[in-house]
Structures are given as structure tokens and as C-alpha cells.
């Protein structure tokens, strides 16, 4: 019964009964479905004349001024297969035609995906590739495109990095396979591996740059994520952590089509945390309690030399000084146009995004032109150019201050004495903030000229020359009023310029002489890439503003520090081949090989070999399945391959004295030894095995994919492993082995496909298990992440390595810990630290349900979730620990207060860390009491759209208007009291690998409400 119903739904077909009326060179008609309902918005196009029409709300269309002749009319409608009908038009004759109904076009088999150095039919792909379309990327107003990949692709874990304007996301494809080396995927824009190092201009104030933020999401046509070695090995030494291929929009043949899109929105914190803290009186009371618990009498001394007279009547709410409702706006204009030989896409955008943090905003102005010129069939030139400027007004974050201060050192009893000072003698933070400015400007231009030659119908040659230019300026200006002692204004500028050149050539040849049932394709090519980074730093005293311009004019004025022209460069030289063999459209065999040479490695280790081999078998082509009504597509695939990771700091392959890095002692010059490099350092390589199955059911109304992988990083690079008594705290080495094993599942189902109601569900689920296989002689404390995460053999990367807290002793009120063996102890001993959790989730995924009603209304509910893993609240040791000069969380009110109290959550208060088992400092108090389950389910996006009826613009130049309202991060279900999605203010690749899910006053993600209008004309 149920099955029959489903079948009915599946077999739902729309029959078009057009009545084609011929009269006086005009083609007229009416399209109705099988129920006699008119079909609106169906395109009719007369190929021979390059003209056409669209049915109106009543299903009528009319195409005028048609000369006599035989024509083919293309009938197309979104979501349906195209139909072509022939029609003969002669004066005075009426022709009646009956056209078979349009079939829903849900087959995935003909979809084309971008693979490295070429494209492929999706059905013939052997590797694991997820394609994400443009409409799914443009939702994040003013933000960085990669943040929108969250929950979209199985095996791709995206964690949004807090609510900071212009901030990026942490992306891990199929787990974390690196420790000290960067674990980010390789980003390739239109074939060019772009500059993507977020740390190249350093970090300050708890932030570094996000080089992806200047890519306008609206310019992107599609994003393909290559996940397994068979897909990524063609990128050789840079493919191990996955590859994200970004393809920008191209011109389209036809009249110029414009799209104007504008969005306005509001931003606020996604979780409420401002009420979590003690009031002034509570704080004073608890401090007194701690003081007396410690055996003291009298009033507890106030912090910062304050006296009781300094205590204000009412405490100050410091959050008001740092929070606001952010306002954002976004404008985009895109144009697509094309003729026989020329195609053009042009896009311009400006966006300005304020976060909910006062003084923090990001704006991006960008332009892109993609121009194709094809003078003859065999020759095509493509020129892509983009220019973007990103501007980030930064504020101090987390440990650096700002909102972080309000949650730590800014006590409610500190109140402004006057505009400048607080009652504790410190500068008023509001005054300090208004006289200190930090911003970052990124100029980015990605340019490529490509020549495509087809000397022969089976040979396709491509030559590319590209330049990716990036100019980063981080600037600070501190007004003279902030220097209370000397009254000096101070300006600092950090500049980095990166020129990234790429030259490549590759050819693809189809072996045509093979027997009919065999197809063979060979691709081979060469690539050279060079990147030059020049960094400058200057600090000048007593100037009146930021050092923006060429600072030569300030030289010698009052220069404190200057470090110019520090240049580093690297090169890649590669050749690569891919051979694809297809047997009767059902067995696909693919092998690839890349030989990569990189200047980043030690002299004898510069070249690496990266082969892959994969096979796919399309079972649905076999007789026993060919006519199955249930299974419409079935493919099995498996592959094995080796890829590398070159996302390592520059200069790790050399060491020695640097005559350009000097200092001075006693009036005499000195030279600096830069010894952390290792001339034996080599590739971090990743051997991966994959198997997958793709199934389409019911004419591909339902498509699923299930894959397994087992990845092993061999020779992972770490920066550790030597005793600091050598004089070097760290050394680069290839020592670690890491394993990532996982399962991914994805399903897309068009649950209901009716003319006036569409319901589609997308669901994906990924499981990854990470394990450090070997570390040689590197001990647990040699590889640290923020918040006491570690790398321990046999455990996942980023294990929480903590002392276990057991309970509060009812009699003494003292904390009881567990020793290594699990016995209770009062003693605080760092040797009792054990692995108690992991920052890595077990499962992550996304669930989207979208509905389209009467073709005008659309709704989408998009959830992301994460299950398993732990969050470590690294600030808890101060907010719930020893009573110090920090503000504390209200939950501390559940402390032990009297002997016999059994249920105390926190031990008796103290101001002396020694009280807790002889702990040396309040900073040591890292226990699993601050470890929380990291599960969450988040309504990432709720959107409602309305497409204005087309008939409103029938006689207008406007083709359509869409309105959309989107709510981002509306709800989150989580057992953690703050935002469960955390990427801390991390300042190195290792920290990003080891310490996601570790919060330290990290600002939560934003909740945003956006309203947008999209006009096509």
C-alpha cells in the first residue's frame, strides 16, 4: 500500500498539452498540466532564431515575428528534462501538436564536476567528490564563503570561528591528519592554488587574517570538495588534507542578464552569557568568605590597592561597554552576457558587516571580470581577474581584552572615576578603546590568463599563467593620551605582500582508435608555482594617525623599530598524469601520478611521488539492474592513493646563523641563530584507502552515497622533540603517524514533487575516528594545544590531558582528585594527569528540509549537529576556581560552605591556591570538572523566500524579484552553557589542529537576521 503510494508520487508526471496556434508569423499557445492547470514560467525557445517566450500565469505564451520555416522549439522548465519539438510554420495554416510531458530531471548521471586539471561526468568519478552549488554559498552576508560549507558535505567538518566580523572557519576534511603542519585543505580558485596562510602576517589582539574573506561568495559558481586520495593525489604534495576547488561564474550566451542582490541584517550573540556573572556584592561577599576560610580576620584586601571607600554603591555592568546589535548591509551586482565568440561575467559587490562587538566590523569591496574569447573553434582565451579590498576594524578579543576583560579582570566594583580613569587607578577601558585603533586591510587580486587549444578533436591543450597578489596591512594606532607616563602616541604597521605566480600547461588526449566499447583518456601536464612574501614592520612614535601610506616619509622622525624587506619565497615544480579507462560505460579505471618538487623541504627530500589508483563499477548498467524500477543507479568504487601536505611554515628546511637577523649587546653587533629548521625535513604523506557506494532509487528521486575511508599520515611533521636545554625550544621533525578512519553517509530525497509543492530533504552524517599511531620519543607535554590538549600515542589528536576531579569532601570542603590509578587523593600532582576526553567529535552532520509552495514560497530549515567529543572551558579555572582578581561565574554560589555539606559542586572558597591540594597557582587548576559534552544541534539557518509573480513584470525589463528572510543560529540545543561551537583565538596551525572546542573567553557565534532582495533583469 505504502509502496503503491510512493510509486504514485514517483510516477507523477506532468503532461503538457500545448495547443500551438499559428497565425501571421506568430506562435501562440497555452500549456496546461494533466489536470488542466496552467503551467507558469515554462520557457520556449526557437533554436534557429535565438528567440523565445515564457508562459504567463495562465499558461499562455506568444512568440511574434517568426518567418516561415521549420523550427525546433525547446521547451524547458526548471527541474524537468528539456523537450524539443519540431514545428512547421506556414501562413494561414494551423498546426496542432501534442507534446509528451516533461520528465522531472532528477538524474544525477549527467552532472559535471570539476576535478583537478579537468572536468568529469559525475557518474564516471572514481574518487570522493562533493559538489556544492552556488545558491548554498551565498547566504552568509558579508562573511567568508567557507563558513557556509558547514553541514553541507559529509566528511567535511566546518566549525565557525566565533562571532567576529570577517572571521573564518576551521575546516577539516576527513579528520585531522596533521599536528604542527596546517590541517586546512588546499584552496584552488579556477585552477590556481591561492595564498591561504592565515598566519603569514602574524596575529594580534587574538586575531589573525582570513585570506578567504576577500573572495566574494556571489562570484562563485560551484565548490567541489575533493576528499580522498584518488581525487586529491593529482594535487600531490598539497592534497592530503583535501582540496577545495572554487569555480567562479562565467558568461552565458544570450542577452545581458543582470542580477542585483541586497541584504540588510542584524547581528547579536547567539547565546546569552552576560547574566552568568556575580554581582558586585556577591563578589565582595565571596571574597570575604574566601579570606576568612583561609584563616584571616578583618576585611579581605581589595584588589589593585583599592580601599573600602573606593567601592561604588552599584556595580558596573561592563558588558554594555563591549556589546551592541551589529548592523550589516550587502550589495551585489552581477552580469552575464555572451555572444558566439565572447562570454562575459562581471560581478561587483560591497558589504559591510558589523559584529555584535563594539568597534568590530568587516567590509569587502570586490569586483570580478571573467572574460572568454573564442576566435575560432579550436582556440579559446579566458581571462579571469578579481580585485578585492577587505577591511577589518579589530578589537581586542578573549585574552587580549575587550569582551574578554568583561568576563575576567574587569570587576563590577571597578567604575569610571572620570572619563579617563577607573577607581582602581587603571585606564577606563572605554576610554582606552576609543583611543586605540587596530585594523587590517587586505588587498587581493587573483588573475589568470588561460589558453585552450584543440589542435585535434581528441586533443585538448591548456596553458595558464596566473598571479595571485595579496597585500596585507595590520595597523595599530595608540593615541598619546594612553601613554600616561610619557605622553607618546604610537603607531605600528605590519605589512606583508605576497606574489604568487603559477604557470601550468596540461593536455588531455582521447584515444580514439580503440574499439568501440573502450574509452581511454590521458591527461598530462607541468606546473610551476612561485610565491614571494615580503614582510615589513615599523613602529613610529609621535605621529598623528595610522602609518598607512608609504612610510618612507616618516623615516627617521621618531622611528622606534624598523624591520624591512624580510623576504621569503617558495617554489613548487610538478608534473602530473592521469589515465582514465572506461569500459562500456560501466567500469572506470583511473590512475594518477604526480611528481612534486618543493623548495620547502630539505635538499635531499625535495621531490615526492604521489600515485593513486581507483576503480568504479556502475552495476546499474548491468542487465539485472538496468530495468529495475527501484534502483536507478548503483555504483561501487574503491581507490588507494598517496597525497602529501605542504602546509608547513616556510624555512623549516634550513637552519643556521642569519646574518640579516642581528641584534646588539654592549654596543657591539650580534647575530641570531635560527636553529629550529631541519635540513632533513620531508613530506608529510598520507596514504589513504577508500571504498564507496552510490545508489539512486526511483529514477534518482532518492540518491545516497556511503563511503568508508582509512587514511594514514606517515611522517607527520611536528615541531617538538628536543629538550630546551639544547638551547632550542623546538625542532622540526617528521616523526608522528596518525590514522583517520571514517564513514560518511549522504542522502538527498525529493519527498514530494508536485507542481505546487516540492519537498526536498538533504541529510549527511560523518563519523571519523582519529588516532595517533606513533610519536617516537615525543612525550605528552612536548606537543601542547591551548587549554591542556595534547598529542598522546594511541589517543586522538587533541586529547584533554587533565587531572580528574572527583568531588568535594563534605567535611573539609576541599577538592578530592583522582590519581593516575583512580584512587582518591587530596594532593594536587601534575603527574596524575590522564587523557580524559577528546576535542574531536564522533559524528557531525547536517539536515536540511526545503519546501517550495506554489512555486513562489520557499522555506528551509537547516540544522547542523555534532555528537561526541568534549568542550574544555579553559577560563573556568579562574571563573570557578581560586578567588582572585577575576570576576566569577554565578554557579560558584554552589560552593561548599559548611562541614557536612554533601552536595557541594565547588570546594570551599580560598584565595590561596595551595589550599587545593598544594596547587602552585590558580592557573594550574585544570581538571575534568571543566570538561563538558560537546553535543549540539543547531538550527543553523531558517529561511523564508517569496518569489514575486512573474506576471507583475510582464511588460517590464525586470525578469523576477525574490525576497528572502534568513535567521542564522536561531536556536542551539547543547548541554554546555555557552556556545558549543568553538574555535578559540588560535594563533598557530598546531593550535588549530589540537584545540578546537577549547574556549577561553571566546566570543560566541552570532545570531543574525537578514533580509534580502534579489532582482533579475
Amino acid at each position, binding site marked *: 500500500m505504502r509502496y503503491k503510494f510512493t510509486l504514485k508520487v514517483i510516477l507523477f508526471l506532468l503532461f503538457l498539452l500545448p495547443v500551438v496556434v499559428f497565425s501571421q508569423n506568430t506562435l501562440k499557445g497555452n500549456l496546461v498540466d494533466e489536470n488542466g492547470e496552467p503551467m507558469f514560467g515554462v520557457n520556449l525557445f526557437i533554436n534557429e532564431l535565438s528567440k523565445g517566450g515564457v508562459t504567463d500565469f495562465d499558461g499562455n505564451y506568444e512568440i511574434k515575428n517568426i518567418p516561415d520555416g521549420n523550427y525546433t522549439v525547446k521547451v524547458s522548465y526548471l527541474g524537468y528534462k528539456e523537450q524539443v519539438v519540431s514545428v512547421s510554420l506556414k501562413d494561414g495554416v494551423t498546426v496542432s501538436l501534442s507534446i509528451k510531458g516533461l520528465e522531472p530531471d532528477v538524474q544525477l548521471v549527467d552532472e559535471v564536476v570539476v576535478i583537478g586539471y579537468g572536468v568529469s561526468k559525475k557518474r564516471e568519478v572514481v574518487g570522493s567528490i562533493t559538489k556544492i552549488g552556488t545558491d548554498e554559498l551565498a547566504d552568509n552576508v558579508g562573511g567568508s564563503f567557507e563558513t557556509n560549507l558547514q553541514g553541507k558535505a559529509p566528511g567535511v567538518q566546518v566549525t565557525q570561528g566565533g562571532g567576529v566580523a570577517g572571521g573564518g572557519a576551521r575546516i577539516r576534511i576527513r579528520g585531522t591528519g596533521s599536528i604542527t603542519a596546517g590541517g586546512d585543505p588546499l584552496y584552488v580558485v579556477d585552477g590556481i592554488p591561492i595564498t591561504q596562510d592565515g598566519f603569514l602576517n602574524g596575529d594580534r589582539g587574538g586575531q589573525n587574517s582570513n585570506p578567504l574573506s576577500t573572495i566574494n561568495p556571489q562570484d562563485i559558481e560551484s565548490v567541489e570538495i575533493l576528499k580522498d586520495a584518488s581525487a586529491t593525489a593529482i594535487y600531490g604534495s598539497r592534497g592530503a588534507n583535501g582540496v577545495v576547488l572554487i569555480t567562479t561564474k562565467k558568461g552565458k550566451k544570450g542577452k545581458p542578464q543582470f542580477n542585483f542582490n541586497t541584504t540588510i541584517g542584524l547581528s547579536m550573540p547567539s547565546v546569552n552569557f552576560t547574566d552568568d556573572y556575580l554581582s558586585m556584592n556577591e563578589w565582595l561577599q565571596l571574597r570575604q568568605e574566601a579570606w576568612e576560610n583561609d584563616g584571616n580576620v578583618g576585611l579581605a584586601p581589595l584588589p589593585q590597592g583599592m580601599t573600602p571607600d573606593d567601592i561604588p554603591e552599584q556595580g558596573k555592568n561592563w558588558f554594555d561597554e563591549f556589546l551592541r546589535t551589529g548592523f550589516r548591509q550587502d550589495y551585489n551586482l552581477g552580469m552575464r552576457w555572451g555572444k558566439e565568440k565572447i562570454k562575459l561575467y562581471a560581478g561587483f559587490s560591497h558589504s559591510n558587516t558589523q559584529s555584535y562587538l563594539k568597534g568590530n566590523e568587516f567590509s569587502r569591496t570586490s569586483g570580478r571580470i571573467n572574460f572568454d574569447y573564442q576566435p575560432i573553434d579550436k582556440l579559446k582565451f579566458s581571462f579571469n581577474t578579481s580585485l578585492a579590498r577587505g577591511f577589518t576594524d579589530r578589537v581586542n578579543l578573549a585574552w587580549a581584552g575587550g569582551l574578554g576583560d568583561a568576563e575576567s579582570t574587569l570587576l563590577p566594583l571597578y567604575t569610571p572615576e572620570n572619563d579617563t580613569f577607573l577607581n582602581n587607578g587603571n585606564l577606563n577601558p572605554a576610554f582606552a578603546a576609543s583611543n586605540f585603533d587596530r585594523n587590517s586591510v587586505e588587498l587581493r587580486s587573483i588573475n589568470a590568463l588561460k589558453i585552450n587549444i584543440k*589542435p585535434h578533436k581528441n586533443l585538448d591543450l591548456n596553458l595558464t599563467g596566473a598571479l595571485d597578489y595579496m597585500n596585507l596591512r595590520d595597523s595599530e594606532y595608540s593615541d598619546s593620551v594612553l601613554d600616561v607616563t610619557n605622553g607618546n602616541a604610537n603607531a605600528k604597521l605590519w605589512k606583508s605582500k605576497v606574489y604568487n605566480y603559477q604557470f601550468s600547461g596540461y593536455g588531455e588526449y582521447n584515444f580514439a582508435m580503440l574499439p568501440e566499447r573502450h574509452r581511454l583518456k590521458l591527461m598530462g601536464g607541468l606546473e610551476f608555482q612561485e610565491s614571494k612574501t615580503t614582510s615589513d614592520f615599523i613602529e613610529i612614535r609621535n605621529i598623528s594617525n595610522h602609518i598607512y601610506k608609504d612610510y618612507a616619509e616618516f623615516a627617521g622622525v621618531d622611528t622606534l623599530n624598523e624591520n624591512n624587506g624580510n623576504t621569503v619565497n617558495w617554489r613548487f615544480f610538478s608534473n602530473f598524469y592521469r589515465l582514465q579507462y572506461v569500459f562500456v560505460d560501466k567500469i572506470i579505471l583511473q590512475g594518477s601520478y604526480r611528481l612534486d*618538487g618543493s623548495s620547502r623541504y630539505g635538499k635531499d627530500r625535495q621531490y615526492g611521488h604521489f600515485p593513486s589508483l581507483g576503480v568504479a563499477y556502475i552495476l546499474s548498467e548491468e542487465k539485472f539492474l538496468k530495468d529495475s524500477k527501484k534502483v536507478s543507479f548503483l555504483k561501487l568504487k574503491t581507490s588507494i592513493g598517496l597525497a602529501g601536505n605542504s602546509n608547513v611554515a616556510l624555512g623549516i628546511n634550513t637552519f643556521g646563523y642569519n646574518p640579516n637577523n642581528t641584534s*646588539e*649587546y654592549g*654596543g657591539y653587533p650580534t647575530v*641570531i641563530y635560527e636553529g629550529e629548521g631541519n635540513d632533513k625535513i620531508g613530506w608529510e604523506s598520507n596514504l589513504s584507502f577508500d571504498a564507496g557506494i552510490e545508489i539512486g532509487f526511483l529514477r534518482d528521486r532518492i540518491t545516497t552515497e556511503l563511503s568508508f575511508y582509512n587514511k594514514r599520515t606517515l611522517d607527520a611533521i611536528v615541531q617538538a622533540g628536543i629538550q*630546551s636545554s639544547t638551547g632550542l625550544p623546538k625542532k622540526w621533525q617528521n616523526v608522528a603517524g596518525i590514522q583517520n578512519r571514517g564513514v560518511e553517509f549522504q542522502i538527498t530525497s525529493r519527498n514530494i514533487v508536485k507542481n505546487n509543492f516540492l519537498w526536498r530533504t538533504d541529510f549527511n552524517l560523518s563519523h571519523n575516528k582519529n588516532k595517533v599511531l606513533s610519536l617516537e*620519543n615525543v612525550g605528552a607535554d*612536548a606537543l601542547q594545544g591551548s587549554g591542556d590538549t595534547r598529542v598522546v600515542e594511541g589517543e586522538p589528536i587533541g586529547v584533554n590531558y587533565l587531572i580528574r576531579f572527583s568531588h568535594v569532601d563534605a567535611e573539609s570542603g576541599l577538592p578530592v582528585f583522582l590519581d593516575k590509578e583512580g584512587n582518591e587523593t587530596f594532593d594536587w600532582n601534575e603527574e596524575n594527569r590522564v587523557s580524559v576526553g577528546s576535542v574531536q567529535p564522533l559524528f557531525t552532520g547536517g539536515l536540511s528540509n526545503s519546501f517550495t509552495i506554489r512555486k513562489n514560497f520557499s522555506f528551509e530549515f537547516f540544522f547542523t549537529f555534532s555528537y561526541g567529543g568534549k568542550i574544555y572551558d579553559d577560563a573556568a579555572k579562574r571563573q570557578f576556581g581560586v578567588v582572585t582578581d577575576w570576576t566569577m561565574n554565578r554557579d560558584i554560589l554552589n560552593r561548599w560552605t559548611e562541614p557536612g555539606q554533601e552536595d557541594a559542586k565547588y570546594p570551599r572558597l580560598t584565595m590561596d591556591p595551595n589550599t587545593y591540594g598544594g596547587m602552585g*597557582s590558580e592557573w594550574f587548576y585544570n581538571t575534568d570538572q571543566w570538561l563538558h559534552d560537546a553535543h549540539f544541534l543547531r538550527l543553523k539557518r531558517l529561511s523564508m523566500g517569496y518569489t514575486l509573480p512573474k506576471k507583475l513584470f510582464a511588460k517590464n525589463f525586470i525578469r523576477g524579484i525574490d525576497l528572502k528572510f534568513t535567521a542564522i543560529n536561531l536556536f542551539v540545543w547543547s548541554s554546555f552553557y555557552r556556545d558549543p561551537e568553538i574555535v578559540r583565538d588560535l594563533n598557530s596551525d598546531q593550535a588549530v589542529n589540537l584545540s578546537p572546542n577549547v574556549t577561553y573567553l571566546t566570543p560566541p557565534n552570532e545570531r543574525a537576521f537578514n533580509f534580502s532582495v534579489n532582482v533579475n533583469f
Partner: protein
Amino acid sequence: MNKHILHILVGLVLVFTGCEKVLEVEDQRIQELNYFESETEVAYVTNEAFRRLASSDAMGGGVWLASELMSDNINGQLLQGDFGAYYNRNTGIFISFTRNIWREMYAATAEANRVLNVIDDVPMDENKKPIYKGALHFVRAVTHFELVRLFAQPYNFTPDNRHLGIPIRNFWDITNLTEPLNRSSVNDVYTFVIDELNTAIDLLPDVNPIQQSYPNALSAKAYLARVYFQMNAFDMAYDLANDVINSGQYQLNDDFLDRFNDDINNSEFIFYQSSMGAYNAGAGFKGHYFNNDNVPTITLSENFYEEASSENGDLRRSDGWFGTRGDFYVLNKVGGNNENIHQPVLHLTELMLIRAESAMELGMVAAGKADLDAIRNRAGLGSALDELSVTQLIEEVQKQRRLEMVGEGNRLHDLKRIAVNGNNSLEIRGSIWNCPGMVVQLPDEELGANAQMQPNPQGGC
């Protein structure tokens, strides 16, 4: 057509081969085995060794402060974080302050090792080689001695001194940096330090002709006197101190206030860290004790101030070394002057006090008292009373050591030295002198890379 394709493919392969040069990028670093071509490089690296030694994390402040925090000169009741942990005498392995001390001291050692590795083969004036070598042996002695005092129980804590000291780094092998190196015994570390200083004494002239701030033979002798004095080896300490004082090369400052000033020719400097040029020696010392606008981070303890106030007329108090700020006692050796000073690491005052105490211990009471009186008189106090017993006189010398050298990282080691010398129940700020926390815990950076490396016992005091 197929021929063309073959050509292209063959071409691609050919282009690739022989492309080693393609990957050669400019590199500014020169490996140490190729770096030293003349005296210039030797001088640069030797200077770098002294710069690292003088850094504010090392002898420029950190080493001094570490021991002061653990002793009784400082009021640390409101200290938090790393300083709080030191004050509580419960340092763990995660203390940045410790990491920095360890790192910088050993970085200076490594610079010395790299020069000593190759200097015999460097084409340069042979007469200058011993001077560089002597200076660098001196560096290694200072780093090992100061570290073993902080990170290990004192000399004579065990009868044979086989208790754990620190790793001895007297070699540099770039090919084997990952080779684990364990802690040597305290005995071995002291033996090494003494050998190094004796080598320096042999190699160095009495006046260093290369740089004024480099050590000379007398600096090495003076340091060796400090080492023997720490070992309670009074005879050796006396002889060496005597040699240095009698050399006539140094005179007591007329005014103790001059000891921390910007006079590079200070007559008391036996070994100092220079602030010539852009370098600000002692920044880590000044910064903690001095604050123009507010109470400084480090203030003096009541216990110290009481001892400093026990005699009327003490100029060190009235002239401002020991002052008050609000409710706090502050140390102001740099005279409220936060500009560059030259920082004395070994001065004649210390040598006089070493000789004084050693002489008394050895029965030369009058000679010892003469030195003591010189210090007392300069501080505006009369000579010590004649009727004092030897024990009382020795205590008086120790008291003057405390007052003269407060802030200079001396007190903790003095108390331990006194404790092992027959005062087994001595307490330092309420805790027994040899409790585990009286020794700084080794930093994680050192322990993490060597599983065999033994940390100090935990448990504080």
C-alpha cells in the same frame, strides 16, 4: 597527430629532468659549520652569548627574581600566576617564567658551545682565541651554576652530592639534537662549573682587551669564589676572593647608591652587563621593582624591612634603597631611575662579604671584621662591636649580605648554604629549607622531549 602527442609527452618528461635548480630559493641562514670564517663571526656569536645571558629572562632579572620570590625578602601575598606559584614554592612544569629562564640560560650556553666547537679552526688572530674561549667558558660556568642552584637541592644536601642536578650542555652536535640528555648529579655539575672557571682563569688576562664587559681572569676567579662559597668551601672561597680584592683592580664605591648606575667604569664591577648602545641591561630587574605610577609588582617583605630597620642611621634606608609606597615597602636600587643602567652581576661588595665570612669561618676573625666594617661604615653604620662572638659576627656578615644584595637573587641560596652548614632545621619563610618546593620544577619543554628525564618531586612546601 599521434606523433605530436608523443613529442609533447616526451617533452614534458625532459623538461622535468634536470630541474634541481628550479627549487633553489634564496636562503639567508648559514649553517654553523660554514658560518665562522673570521674573527668577525666569532665576535658576533660571542656577543650573542652574552646578550642571551643578559636577557631579562636570564641574568638580566629572571634568575634573580626566581630565587627572591622563593625566599623571605619579598611580600608576595597578592601575587598571582607564575610569581604566585614561585612565592608559594609550588612551581609546576607549566610556568612560562621557568621556561624562559631555562631557555635563555641554555641558549647562551649553546652559543658558547657553537663557538667553542669550531674556534680552533677559524682563521683569525691566534692571540685573541684564548680570550674568546675564556669568556665563553665563563658563560657556561655561570649558566650551569645559576641553574643548578635554582633547579636542584643545594650542594651538600646529600653527603656525596649524587642528588639530581641539571643536564650539562658542554657540546653542540647539530646531527643529534634529539639525543636525550639526562640530569647530571649536583656533584658533576659543580665539578663542571669549577673546571670551566679554572679554564677561564687560565685563558683570560686580568683586563679583557676585546670588550670591557667581557669577563677577565679576575671575574672568573670572583665567580669561582662565589661557587666555593656556595659549597661552604671557605678556604678556596677566601683565597680566590683575596686574590681578586688584592689585585687592586677594584674599589668599593664611596656611595652604595652608585652600584646601580650608568657609569660603565664603576670601580666595583667585577662582571657586569652592559647597556651600551640599544641594549637595556637589567630591564627585567628594574621593571619588577619599579613603577612610576603605582605600586610595583614586587615589594619587600615586612621581615626584610624589619631587619633593614634594626639599626638606626642606616643610609640604605634613609637614602632610599629601601622605601615605602603607601602600605608597601619597596626596593629602589636603581634610584627611581628607569633609564639604562649597567647591571652588576658580580661586585666588590659581594667579594668583600665572601672574604669576610670565609675568614671568620677560617679563624681569621680580625681580617674578616675589617671587611665587614668597610661595608657597615659605608652604609652609615659604625663598626661591628668588638665584643661580638665569631658566631655573632658571622651572622652580622650574613645580615649585611642580605641588605646589600637584596633583589640580586642571593638570599635563598645563602639560607640553603647556611642550612647545610649545620643548621638542618632552618626554615625559609615558614617552610623547611629542603622541602620539595624550595627547588624549581623543570619546565615541560625540557621534560616532554625526554621520557627518562626526572622531574623534581612535587608537593611544594
